[in-house]
């Protein structure tokens, strides 16, 4: 269906985002919350739901959930209540999920997207942020004819962030998700990785005739594994709804699954939408009553958020708005840049190196900036060596390549590789004389006043010295050697 065919309709989107909190232990027991352990090893009576076991709330999980809520400008409820969401599933050991229902941790927040584009900024309301626990994992393809259950993930702390239906296009939904991810990552709340499952998105979407205010019937779209999949799924589901409405049909409230390979949404076969979860207050946990002074402290201790950092960096390091946005796209990258800029005393060089060499190197190695072998202090030192003429730019690139491989500091690498600039006159004179001898035609033209050949000759000297010659000195020495 073409864009023109949907032009008289407007898309209305609200998103439900589940985010895994970056705690050491699970939400209600002392088991490790780490990924990747052998199946059913991070388990105990509580998260296995053995008879008689009881949950105990993880304070750090509350702190991270609060950070998220405050970073999203939410009003924190002094008293919130855990509730049981009851349903049977093999990877849900208790037969209910501990969640929050009618009294969530925080409500009524917002974030603003599109501030840096030419679009008018869009303010998206956050309906609520509540805490809950994850379920385990069902593995269907491991043993023929049987389902295996891994409960390592059962009880890992999550927050659910529910937005208002304030987005009007797939692109806005994408921008919301990217900004949300950025904020949560900056605030240190979560690893926010869709690949690792620490961020999951469900979308509520409806269509209405442009200019009307009444919301249409919505469907819930699930099973998207990337932000771009969310955008494609929304466009596809919107088009499906518009086609229905145009044909005089009605949209049914139901759950749709995104089939990425087919590029379409299809009704979920599960009867999930007819579930009655029989929520009621969790009697094993008293209401969560927060010390508001502590909440204030948690708020004050939130690390700098992307917006503030963008503005500060642009000003402090004299960056263009575009560069500042690029740099602050990830918290790790912007922190890395800032450290390099401070260590090198040369923000401009730091910018070029971080956006160029560093980005290329981590992409090539497939690592994150936190895992990158070259520490920002070492890169700063390397840039200082260039600035102080200890290393040529060419040599610096070779030193950097070795640093990426070995993690050694630049001075050590330069010494080991013999890459420090050679400013010793006798060595330089030797190379210059050789170049003049080997290129008699150019030498003659240069002597006869063709000064533009100076660059060519200096280049040849640099090449002969394998980049070690100090180009400034070669430039000085060349005219006098040519005359002699």
């Amino acid at each position, binding site marked *: 269906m073409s864009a023109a065919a949907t032009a008289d309709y407007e898309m209305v989107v609200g998103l439900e985002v589940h985010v895994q909190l970056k705690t050491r232990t699970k939400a209600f027991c002392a088991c490790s919350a780490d990924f990747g352990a052998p199946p059913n090893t991070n388990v105990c009576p509580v998260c296995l739901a053995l008879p*008689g076991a009881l949950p105990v709330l993880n304070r750090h999980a509350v702190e991270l959930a609060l950070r998220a809520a405050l970073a999203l400008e939410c009003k924190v409820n002094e008293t919130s209540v855990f509730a049981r969401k009851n349903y049977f599933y093999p990877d849900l050991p208790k037969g209910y999920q501990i969640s929050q229902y009618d009294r969530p941790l925080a409500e009524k927040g917002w974030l603003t997207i599109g501030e840096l584009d030419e679009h008018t900024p869009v303010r998206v309301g956050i309906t609520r942020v509540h805490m809950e626990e994850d379920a385990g994992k069902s593995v269907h393809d491991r043993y023929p004819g049987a389902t295996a259950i891994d409960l390592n993930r059962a009880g890992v702390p999550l927050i659910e962030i529910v937005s208002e239906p304030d987005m009007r296009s797939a692109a806005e939904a994408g921008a919301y998700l990217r900004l949300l991810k950025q904020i949560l990552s900056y605030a240190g709340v979560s690893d926010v990785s869709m690949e690792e499952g620490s961020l999951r998105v469900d979308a509520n979407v409806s269509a209405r005739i442009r200019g009307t205010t009444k919301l249409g019937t919505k469907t819930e779209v699930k099973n998207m594994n990337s932000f771009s999949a969310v955008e494609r799924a929304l466009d596809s589901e919107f088009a499906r709804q518009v086609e229905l409405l145009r044909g005089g049909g009605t949209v049914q409230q139901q759950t749709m699954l995104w089939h990425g390979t087919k590029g379409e949404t299809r009704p979920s076969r599960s009867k999930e939408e007819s579930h009655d979860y*029989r929520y*009621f207050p969790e009697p094993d946990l008293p209401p969560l009553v927060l010390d508001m002074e502590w909440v204030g402290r948690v708020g004050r201790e939130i690390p700098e958020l992307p917006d503030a950092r963008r503005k500060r960096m642009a000003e402090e390091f004299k960056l263009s708005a575009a560069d500042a946005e690029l740099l602050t796209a990830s918290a790790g990258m912007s922190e890395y840049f800032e450290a390099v800029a401070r260590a090198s005393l040369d923000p401009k060089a730091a910018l070029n190196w971080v956006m160029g060499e560093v980005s290329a190197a981590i992409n090539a190695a497939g690592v994150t900036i936190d895992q990158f072998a070259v520490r920002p202090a070492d890169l700063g030192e390397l840039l200082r060596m260039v600035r102080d003429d200890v290393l040529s730019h060419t040599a610096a690139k070779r030193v950097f390549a070795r640093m990426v491989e070995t993690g050694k500091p630049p001075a050590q690498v330069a010494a080991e590789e013999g890459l420090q600039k050679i400013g010793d006159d006798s060595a330089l004179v030797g190379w210059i004389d050789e170049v003049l001898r080997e290129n008699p035609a150019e030498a003659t033209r240069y002597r006869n006043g063709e000064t533009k050949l100076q660059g060519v000759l200096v280049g040849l000297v640099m090449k002969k010295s394998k980049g070690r010659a100090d180009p400034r000195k070669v430039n000085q020495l060349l005219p006098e050697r040519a005359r002699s």
Partner: protein
Amino acid sequence: MKPPPRAPDLARKLLAQPLTECVACVREGGALPSDLVSAAFDRADDVGAGRESLNIFLATDRVRATESAKELTALIGRAEAPGNLAGAPVAVKDNIATLHMPTTCGSKVLEGYVSPYEATVVRRLRANGAVIIGKTNMDEFAMGSSTENSAYGPTRNPVDIRRVPGGSSGGSAAAVAAGIVRLALGSETGGSVRQPASFCGIVGVKPTYGRVSRYGLVAFGSSLDQVGVLGRSVEDTAIGLEVIAGCDQLDSTSADVPVPRYELEKNARLDGLVIGKPKEYYPEGLDPRVAERCERALDAFRELGAEVRDVSLPHTSYSIPVYYVVAPAEASSNLARFDGVRYGLRVASESGLTGMYEATRARGFGPEVTRRVMLGTYVLSAGYYDAYYKKAQSVRTLIAQDFRDVFLSGVDVLFTPTTPTPAFELGAVKDPYEMYLSDIFTASANLAGVPAISVPIGTASGLPIGGQIIAGHFEESAMFRAAFGLERALAGKALPGEGSA
């Protein structure tokens, strides 16, 4: 000169003595804990505790009990403190998690299930020198008032084998009443310790909600459940409660309130104590034998110097309806984990996962459990939640407020009958609702979270009758004080024609 008693004879005698004497003798090296274990098992044989007769235990472990007894002896030999229950054989209700012995909750769904961890109360018992000799029979998942709902057959009342011991802690009550142990743990949701204590002629305590850790107590109605203590005397139960009480990091609903020593002064009077007599607990149709014994108990209180005051708890009549909404609602959720996936019974089915769930739970749960799970599921369902669960919770706050008001008005404790009638015969109560009315005088204390104790106040035709003392939140000291006074005043005051219970 008399020869010193043979060790087993001494142990048998000690088993019939107050806990303090038994424990003192063990601590001074006068008796071996292993002799007490043998005496308990011998007594169990003598009274016919086995399946074919009283059917008190679902599991016993004589070998391990003897081993722990020997460890205690070694401890005493090294002059290390063996604790306030040193050497005392103790029985534990089968819904409290113990290592080594199964924890079945009287249900087929947990047949053979052995917990890999131990309940906090059991750890505290062991740390204080108690020796766990067995797990006691109970109504399945503590749902019942007669122990007839056990999947492993009913327990019988040692006082009269044709009658029920009450429930759901019927096995624990019978173990104490039969003289096998001085002390047993039970659990309460709506009267499951006090009612069987009353039926068996012993003492049963339900502490304040939050006084005792629930960690390891298999949940029935989480907001009502408390571990309770059954014993031969008020003093024994006070010692037992002191051992198991106290805040526990593993139970977020356990209260951080200091546990006092329950000092019980012999021959102490009750001058100044105000005892409330709530009219709602003395209805017109109350069994005259029960009413008469209660009046006698109130007279005894007056003789001790206490003032008896007529009071009212106006919302009492709602307690059974409220209880039978709240408890099944929580139970329907608490019992969802028995799904055949991870432990316990699994019944395979041709029709996949749902079939397995249905077959497992249909075969695993008995009729009363099924009834309550269905009831609980219903009252939590969309469209019914407000009318039932939410309504019940708001009435529950009114019931709790009744108690707060009466205690704020200057009343120290309340005195009521524990049950409307003495123990009934097995099979006599067939209508579930009639059975539910067994808890009519006890359920309010669970709904309000206040502590209560049942003490024997006499018998009728040889059948024990219990009186209940209810106190304010964390006021167990006042409750024990009144109960201790009453117990001593009634001792040796048998009415003409009344047998000794």
